[in-house]
């Protein structure tokens, strides 16, 4: 990896705005982690179309390794209260729900300022309803040479 991959929050990956689809665990594939371990340092969603109705969402990681267990990156949160311009994120603690609400500001990964270690796999987005449209920004730092995250 290049030395500048370690600057600030690391490498930024953006996912264009897309309508949320109903997906059970392990969720709709959003990002691929490949080539080794990475540290997830930020994951931020921007609401472009309000859900308007109940929609409980959370992120998971489905590991590539055979026998790997699907793990959550956050607990579920009903994003019904969000409107255009509101922000959605995770704290970094997998035991804590996603952070949303009708707010246009969010603390970035306050529970994991050094990041969340992820093995190669697919980061998926679970949603209980097809309500709302979001665009996403993910930041990461490679741990292993060749490790990377790409949008699906």
């Amino acid at each position, binding site marked *: 990896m290049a030395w500048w991959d370690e600057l600030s929050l690391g490498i930024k990956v953006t996912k264009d705005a897309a309508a949320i689809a109903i997906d059970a665990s392990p969720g709709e594939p959003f990002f691929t982690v490949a080539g080794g371990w990475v540290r997830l340092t930020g994951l931020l969603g921007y609401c472009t179309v309000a859900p308007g109705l109940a929609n409980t969402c959370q992120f998971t990681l489905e590991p590539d390794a055979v026998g790997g267990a699907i793990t959550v990156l956050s607990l579920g949160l009903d994003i019904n209260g969000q*409107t255009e*311009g509101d922000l959605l994120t995770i704290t970094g603690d997998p035991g804590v729900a996603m952070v949303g609400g009708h707010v*246009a*500001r969010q603390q*970035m990964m*306050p529970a994991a300022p050094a990041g969340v270690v992820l093995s190669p796999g697919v980061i998926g987005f679970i949603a209980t309803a097809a309500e709302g449209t979001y665009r996403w920004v993910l930041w990461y730092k490679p741990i292993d040479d060749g490790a990377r995250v790409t949008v699906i």
Partner: protein
Amino acid sequence: MAWWDDLDLGVRVDRPAEAIALTGTPGDPYFTIAGGMVLLTGLIGIVTVAPGAAQTLSFELSPTVGAGADVVLCTPTDIQTATLGDVVTISGDPGDALINGHLASNLMMEDAPNGIALAPGILGLVATDTLGTMRWVLWYKPAEIGATVVVA
């Protein structure tokens, strides 16, 4: 954005010293966020003329999007005891009061070491009186291409 925008605390924006104006929510417009989401990584104020009497301050974000809700970056606090050269700042936790007192040093964003994500809008200073003069320094990192913060 340039790669150096992500170094250290990011891009610095200075607001020259001026008398505080009595302004209710969402506050006297101090900084404008435009072009996309940013990560606020620091916000400090330096007292150049002591308030001398009760003066309660807080920061709010008024989102550009019409449906957006005004949100606080900190809860209000009285800076009466601050004198020339004292420093006020925010912890990064919106539930914490603006950090102040008769102090010439303060921790920077101790509760949000990776910053606070902000949607486009106006950062305003809410003040309960016209007492005191301060200058301000804000640091940010663009979370999206084209996102900027400028003095309002």
